């Protein structure tokens, strides 16, 4: 990794807490992460590990009773300090999201054309009617949709087409960063692959940074440059995708990769025994301690290991690597 490049996204000690009757839900608990321009980062984790909350937090869209703390620099500007109106203008134009639920992410009573244009209009883009038509056609063309889609309503499109429309909307203002929250999880595998190819192609051509959120390690391996492994509320490990797969450091990452099926080898899948811990009032130790095969009694239960960069671009939070440098 070239450490001299200024990161486009610099998350420092981000915390998203929900204050509910049962206690404090620490959905995101002190995440530190930087993404350089043009880099595609995959954020992986099990259900409930706080991936989607992270995505919403990055868009600054978490609502009460959730609170958000820490620093979140987008190109050097801490977006957590922006006013509501300033933040609104950042969304789509600098920080765009491809939503999770492809089937239902478009307004059912508006034509596709209007849904592509209204974001731009609300960001002050002024277009004549013919310019607008041209822009819509151009965007549809980029995501490989015929131009007649512009006049259609969402229910006339298939799931894959709808998700392509969402992609077209997300890139309509050439954002710096694209946040894709499981963009293909609602689609079948064939369409999944096609849509993912479109997204990665666009990210490359437009030189965007992307945060791809998901739980599919296989999909990640194909689509991203770096991987961040999340375990309820916390980052466990971050590194280049090749390094992570070649030499996973954290026991959780190791278990995750071991649980992948191997081509040609028959046998029982290696799951990870146990269930993820509750994020309501978590204990002081490492969240993975009760499932960890390499747990150090005492230390791992009482103290959360610091999230440290143990070699350039490689971060891990585990007591096993204490002192390694």
């Amino acid at each position, binding site marked *: 990794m070239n450490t001299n490049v200024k990161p486009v996204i610099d998350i420092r000690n981000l915390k998203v807490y929900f204050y509910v009757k049962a206690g404090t839900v620490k959905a995101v608990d002190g995440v530190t992460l930087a993404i350089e321009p043009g880099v595609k980062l995959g954020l992986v984790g099990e259900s409930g590990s706080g991936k989607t909350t992270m995505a919403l937090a990055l868009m600054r869209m978490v609502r009460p009773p959730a609170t958000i703390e820490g620093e979140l620099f987008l190109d050097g500007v801490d977006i957590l300090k922006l006013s509501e109106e300033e933040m609104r203008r950042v969304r789509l134009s600098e920080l765009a999201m491809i939503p999770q639920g492809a089937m239902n992410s478009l307004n059912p*009573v508006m034509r596709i054309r209007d849904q592509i244009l209204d974001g731009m209009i609300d960001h002050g883009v002024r277009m004549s009617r013919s310019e607008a038509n041209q822009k819509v056609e151009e965007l549809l063309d980029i995501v490989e949709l015929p131009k007649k889609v512009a006049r259609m309503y969402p229910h006339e499109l298939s799931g894959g087409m709808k998700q392509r429309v969402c992609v077209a909307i997300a890139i309509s203002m050439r954002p710096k960063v694209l946040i894709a929250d499981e963009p293909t999880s609602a689609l079948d595998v064939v369409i999944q692959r096609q849509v993912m190819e479109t997204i990665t192609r666009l990210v490359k051509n437009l030189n965007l940074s992307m945060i791809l959120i998901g739980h599919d390690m296989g999909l990640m391996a194909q689509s991203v440059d770096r991987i961040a492994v999340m375990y309820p509320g916390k980052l466990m490990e971050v590194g280049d995708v090749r390094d992570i797969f070649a030499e996973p450091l954290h026991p959780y990452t190791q278990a995750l990769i071991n649980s992948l099926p191997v081509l040609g080898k028959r046998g029982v899948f290696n799951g990870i025994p146990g269930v993820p811990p509750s994020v309501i009032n978590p204990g002081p130790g490492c969240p993975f301690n009760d499932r960890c095969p390499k747990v150090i009694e005492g230390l791992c239960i009482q103290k959360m290991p610091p999230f440290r960069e143990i070699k350039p671009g490689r971060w891990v939070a585990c007591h096993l690597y204490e002192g390694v440098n």
Partner: protein
Amino acid sequence: MRLSYVIRRVFFVFMVIWTAATINFVLPRLTGRDPIKEQLMQQIASAGRKPEDAEQMWRKYNDLFGLDKPLWQQYLSYMSSVARLDFGYSINSYPRTVMEIIIARGRLTLPFLSVAIFIAFVTGILLGALLGWNKTPKWISAIVVPPLMVFSSVPQFLVALVLIYFVAFRAKLFPLGDPYPKTMIEDWSNPAFLAKYAYHAVLPILSVVIVEASGWALGMRAMMVTVEGEDYATFAEAKGLKNSRIFFRYLMRNALLPSLTGLALRLGFIITGAAVTETFFNYSGIGSTLSTAISTFDYFLLYGICLIMVVSIALATFIMDMIYPLLDPRIAYRGQRG
């Protein structure tokens, strides 16, 4: 929208009206009561006529109204007059025709009630949308929602009685009843009459608006919350849209659809709803005429009003069916397929 869709709907409307007209014909005959005999008996008792004349008069009247004919003939002549919107004479207000009465009373009811329904709908929907919106401060809901729940669940006549007692009787701000002062002549081209009509309509309108707007508001609030949970609401925010656009085009626009169906049905029930309001405000409109017709068993007037009711419900639903595909593109799609 396909032509076949329209044709199917039109056919449906006719079927509904025909069925209703038939039931309308059969039902009163199943009660076993004889309106003419009852009317005559009353007259004899009050006017001191001789009972011997009664038999003859009863025959005469039955002949006049065609009630001596076989049932199927009565049915056919009934259907043909229904088709001409001719419901014959009122038994009680003879020689006035049913249509005359319906028009005379209906034109007193329709203006005030449609204004009331319109105001109730618009205020209720806007209020509900604002209350359900997640950008609205929580304390506003905390203050406004409990009274809405009370108003939407108390019977309308209670609200009417409270208004009559405090506003009309005690404070004397508005008249106690009647569509216009008894000393005035009904003349719709006279501005002074219109002003008085409006003045007299304030309390009846208020009683309808208080109850119905609360109901619309609560329903709309619930729908807003549902729509806000939809993925397209989240995506709309992620698109950095202006709050006003999200509120009107994304949230309200979608949350409104079920309420519009409700409005169409409400408009269809304009007469039945009027009965309660008009009875309490002593308002001689179509609603109070309906309740009088029931209690005095005025066959023909009842036929007429009931049929007008059915026609208005069927028409309201029909109009809604025609407009709905424009409001919700998904409906037209289903129509084309099925």
